[in-house]
């Protein structure tokens, strides 16, 4: 399990997840992700799952947990590039509204409130 966090303008965190996200992996990365995103004046987390090969319900717990942390600042969550199986898992868990069919750059623009065209 590996991940990468890129900050945009201090308000948007793009988290790219790599490999397999299970209970073991979430326990390894949760605190560090949490600490990083709680710095600055974060408003949006964009989860890019393009390179994530596997995710079970632990991934739902990880995302829901960060949504809870963002609630204090009325922040938003965007989920990009889930596999078919991940899509179903998000649907069961009531997270379908957060999935977006956009490229990462488009999602960042969206989060900044810039609408194209």
């Amino acid at each position, binding site marked *: 399990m590996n991940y990468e966090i890129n900050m945009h303008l201090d308000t948007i965190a793009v988290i790219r997840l790599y490999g397999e996200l*299970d209970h073991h992996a979430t326990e390894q990365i*949760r605190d560090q992700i949490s600490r990083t995103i709680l710095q600055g004046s974060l408003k949006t987390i964009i989860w890019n799952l393009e390179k994530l090969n*596997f995710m*079970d*319900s*632990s991934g739902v717990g990880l995302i829901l947990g960060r949504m809870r942390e963002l609630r204090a600042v009325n922040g938003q969550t965007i989920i990009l590039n889930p596999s*078919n*199986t991940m899509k179903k*898992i998000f649907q*069961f868990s009531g997270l379908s509204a957060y999935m977006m069919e956009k490229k990462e750059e488009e999602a960042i623009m969206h989060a900044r409130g810039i609408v194209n065209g």
Partner: protein
Amino acid sequence: MDNEMTLSFLAVSENESLARMAVTSFVAQLDPTIDELSEFKTIVSEAVSNAIIHGYDEDGKGLVTVHAVREGDVISVAVKDEGNGIPDLKKAMEPLYTSKAEMERSGMGFTIMESFSDNLQVESEPGVGTVVTFSKKFHTVKMPQIS
């Protein structure tokens, strides 16, 4: 029965990926589609994580056993622990219910297992342990016959 495997390992979270890897190799002979395989791996991952987290409180001592059988294009799996057992099974199977909210467990494990498998059963007794059994039929794509 066409094939059978048994895998036992200690209740440590590192072994969740071991269980997924073993069952992935076991079903490879059926040529599953990517979606079938990832759904199957998800069910196993949920059941094994439950056994490690809830059955044994990650004590690193208890044994989790994964037993898989292949009959034609149907794989049946039993994930067994001899741990705490589930006091209220009906409640445990409700979507979003978790006894470990502080660990950020989502409470979606059983819902996902039920949705991705063809037939899921849970037997549990407090102080004795838990067995989750399920089966899944694989719709193998057969190569067209060239005459």
